[in-house]
């Protein structure tokens, strides 16, 4: 699936999500913020998990945080990922005040035996070979 097909499928199946899958590499990372109570919400849902209101505004966030958890996959779950193994997926807790966690891939150059929960990471936007936008995380000092 190429980037255009990916986006049009997202707009069709998950309209709340689509604006946040923006393919523009230069765009800041943005997440929905509830207009009524101010909570940043991730993943995007039709209503706010805190106050149930349905109005959101897209708000830029700084892609810096800590590794909340991780796993390195050695055996491809399906053939489409066979060319990537081994690869590390991280859940990153963004710094306050957002309190949201984002999934992403750790940049391959970061893979080390010292990989652990709590490491500081910075996210950058990249594209898969098919042009699908991705978040890739790098360990920072």
């Amino acid at each position, binding site marked *: 699936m190429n980037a255009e097909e990916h986006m049009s499928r997202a707009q069709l199946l998950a309209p709340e999500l689509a604006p946040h899958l923006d393919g523009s590499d230069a765009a800041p990372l943005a997440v929905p913020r509830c207009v009524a109570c101010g909570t940043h919400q991730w993943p995007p849902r039709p209503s706010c998990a805190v106050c149930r209101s349905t109005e959101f505004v897209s708000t830029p966030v700084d892609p810096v945080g800590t590794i909340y958890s991780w796993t390195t996959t050695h055996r491809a779950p399906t053939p489409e990922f066979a060319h990537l193994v081994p690869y590390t997926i991280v859940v990153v807790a963004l710094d306050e005040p957002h309190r949201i966690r984002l*999934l992403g891939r750790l940049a391959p150059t970061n893979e080390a035996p010292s990989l652990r929960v709590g490491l500081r990471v910075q996210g950058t936007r990249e594209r898969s070979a098919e042009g699908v936008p991705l978040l890739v995380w790098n360990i920072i000092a």
Partner: protein
Amino acid sequence: MSSISIAGVGSSAFTRASGRSVPALAREATLLALADAGMSPADLGAVVPVGGSLFTEDVVAGLGLRDDVLDVLPPPGGNGGLNSVGAAELILRAGAADVAVAVFARNGRSASRIGRRVSDLPGQQFREFLERPYGWVAPAQWYAMIAQRHMALHGTSTDALAEVALTMRAHAQLNPHAMMFGKPMTREHYDASPMVSDPYRLFDCCLETDGAVAVVLTSRDRRSNPAGERDVRLLAFSSARPQSADDLTNREDWFRIGLTTAAPAVYERAGIGPADVDTAMIYDCFTFEVLHQLEEAGFCPRGEAGAFVLSGALRLGGRLPTNTHGGLLSEGHLLGLSHVVEAVRQVRGEAGDRQVPHARVAAVTGWGDWGDGSMALFGGRGVE
């Protein structure tokens, strides 16, 4: 309120390639369970097939419903097995039938492997657009993420994961029905098994199985049943979901799962506590999920499951003999309904070489997609 009993249980052979249709497998297991109950198909007033595609989780997330809101169809993931027993109980308690069967059949090895079945789970919009692009698509990878955090926070070790796998395999050596009967495992075998998704090696992962399991429940009085003396009481059942049931990543507390809500409810309804449980059948899709559920079911404090299992607690003769049939890891994977069969055999005293002496109360847990959880307590003769 009338009491509800398990009158009969039955299973087909558990194999890698059944060569039979799913309806044929379901028929065999159901007929065996009815025979075990001293009943015939004419006795059956209700059927609860495990399966379906109703995503209660999606509704719960959208409306902010209670974690333990009731639903009548079993959920699509692994929690559906035990929930079929819960749904049958509801039907019987409502008086809509007096005999019901909970039944599951699947050619889970030869036809519909797990990699394809995950597309039947809730929250597909998150799966497809937020997770699949990173290659985070398989249960082994989701739950490895929870295990890794538990290991970081509580010092839970690979040794503890290995002990779960080795215990299940040792129990399977006492169960001729188990797929891994006659195939013992050593620690060296475990350590040599390939890494799937850190910390999970191949032998931390459950089997995939062709087969069927059926459980016949009844509200009939023991005395009016031909085989009623062997009836096993369903003492209590409860099921719940974690917060953010269709998404793991942003759940406030990763260790607070459906079972965290369901277990206290079950103990309260049954009027007993975890210390009264003689044997447990814990949904063991992966080794860490056993540790996680032991904590949330109250068998040990949170963070201490590693030490608990390393004490030998799960082995026959230990403090809480667990998955005495070999579990999903070594007997076979029919969505955990086989855990109910083993619980029934244990409290009936019919577990043969793997019998837990004087087992009167058995606990069974269910676990599905990112932490849906349920628990049932079963009581043998004299336990009401």
